[in-house]
């Protein structure tokens, strides 16, 4: 069998799947994230919450290895992401996927090409038939039923988000990074994505996401980390969040800001 169905899912090891260790990130002389340490356990879902502009998306990008910390370390299965060899980096990318807040679909490619690129990168042996089948499968999964030979500019923001989700899921990742993933979606599409994420959780996928939606956080997160002014101000389990009134109020207040 070729394609993502045949992916070796990586051996389970003790310790967190991804961890930020005293990670700091500065850009243009400004500290955006300061000394954040979060272990992200394998198979668990972590919600990053907090006020807008507080550094949640930057923490998510640090965890995904999209940006390199100016200080501290980000590890995947114990290895420093910034020091990984090319082969290890490629294996990490094959196992993980990122959904961007603004979808970030490649404007100069049509939807089919957008969905095929990750497959061609990680499964070069896949033929056209396999590619077509996997693209159709993942589009059905996210509920997109329109033409795939059009460019992203011809889609609504909500449809772009669906395609961004499809791109993230096309290689069947075991680690999902989602940035404001239900933003700009209508209720039906949002519900579909929430149930999709729940299905991925049930399959053992590790999910790390940024959201302001309290309902979704209550519904899906095992762990909640609040980021305020670039620092980790609170880290609680879903049980603590549900049972401790003071903690709940603090987080709800932080989300509302």
């Amino acid at each position, binding site marked *: 069998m070729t394609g993502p169905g045949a992916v070796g899912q990586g051996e389970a090891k003790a310790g967190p799947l991804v961890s930020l260790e005293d990670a700091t990130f500065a850009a243009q002389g400004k500290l955006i994230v300061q000394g954040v340490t979060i272990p992200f356990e394998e198979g668990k879902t972590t919600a990053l919450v907090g006020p807008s502009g507080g550094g949640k998306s930057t923490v998510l990008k640090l965890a995904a290895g999209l940006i390199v910390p100016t200080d501290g370390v980000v590890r995947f299965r114990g290895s420093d992401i910034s020091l990984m060899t090319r082969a290890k980096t490629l294996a990490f990318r094959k196992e993980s996927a*990122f959904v961007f807040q603004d979808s970030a679909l490649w404007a100069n490619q049509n939807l089919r090409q957008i969905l095929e690129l990750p497959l061609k990168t990680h499964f070069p042996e896949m033929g056209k038939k396999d590619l077509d089948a996997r693209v159709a499968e993942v589009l059905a999964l996210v509920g997109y039923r329109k033409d795939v030979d059009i460019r992203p500019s011809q889609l609504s923001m909500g449809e772009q988000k669906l395609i961004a989700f499809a791109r993230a899921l096309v290689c069947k990742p075991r680690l999902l990074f989602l940035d404001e993933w239900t933003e700009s979606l209508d209720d039906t599409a949002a519900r579909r994505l929430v149930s999709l994420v729940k299905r991925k959780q049930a399959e053992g996928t590790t999910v790390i996401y940024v959201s302001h939606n309290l309902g979704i956080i209550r519904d899906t997160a095992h762990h909640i980390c609040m980021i305020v002014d670039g620092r980790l101000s609170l880290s609680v389990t879903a049980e603590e969040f549900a049972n401790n009134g003071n903690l709940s109020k603090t987080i709800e207040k932080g989300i509302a800001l």
Partner: protein
Amino acid sequence: MLKKLGATVNDKISASVYTIGFFGKTIRGLGRFFYHNRTSTKILIMQILFTFVEALGISSLLAMGIGAAVNVLGLPILTSFSQQKLIYPLLITIITRELGPLLTAFIIIARSATAIATEVAGMVVSHEIEAYISVGVDPIEHIAVPRFIGVTLSLFLLNIYFSIFGLAGSFLIVQILNPTPAADYFNNLLATLRISDILVSLIKSLVFGMILAVVATVQGFSVERASTEIPQAGLRAVGSAFAWCITADIVISALYYMLSAGGAA
């Protein structure tokens, strides 16, 4: 004042080191592009189409204009002291060796360097580059390398086209000023043309192509997050590419004259 000057010099040195490193990574990515990459070929084809094919019109006009100017201005002066045969080395020196590669580079800077810098900058701002990284695609190999090959190859071909069109086009002007049989005109040109003229011209076109492709992509990648940085990246690419191409032109021409003088001695 001194502190500010020092900081500026430091920034310039850092930027130059980064550009050299970027060039190194691009060269390293060439091998992977040819042997492993089956997704960026379309970008390469589109780059050649835009940089070479679509620039043929403006290149023809400019080549013909330069050829005409050399003839119109040079021929009467040379004829006045019976040295009209010197028009051939003059044409080859100006069109093939000196102005041809530089003007071709200027055409490509104005068209493609700005286009590449603004396109890449737009991709950075809209997080498309991060999206490439997230799916395991190296942006240098996928974005920079096909543009590097496309621009360098296009400048190389466009320079040859410019030389041929400039020299052949000027023949039409010669017919008005001083009618000459085509066989005489082209035989004289070929007799004057030296291998070293062709080599210098080709070397310049390759060097200019590499310079402006790297400068344009580096400037595109250098933006942070604001959309207002996109046109600024285009402007910086034009300024830097002009400066680097002119500097490289001076260095190559100086080396050529030094080696020629050494050879003659």
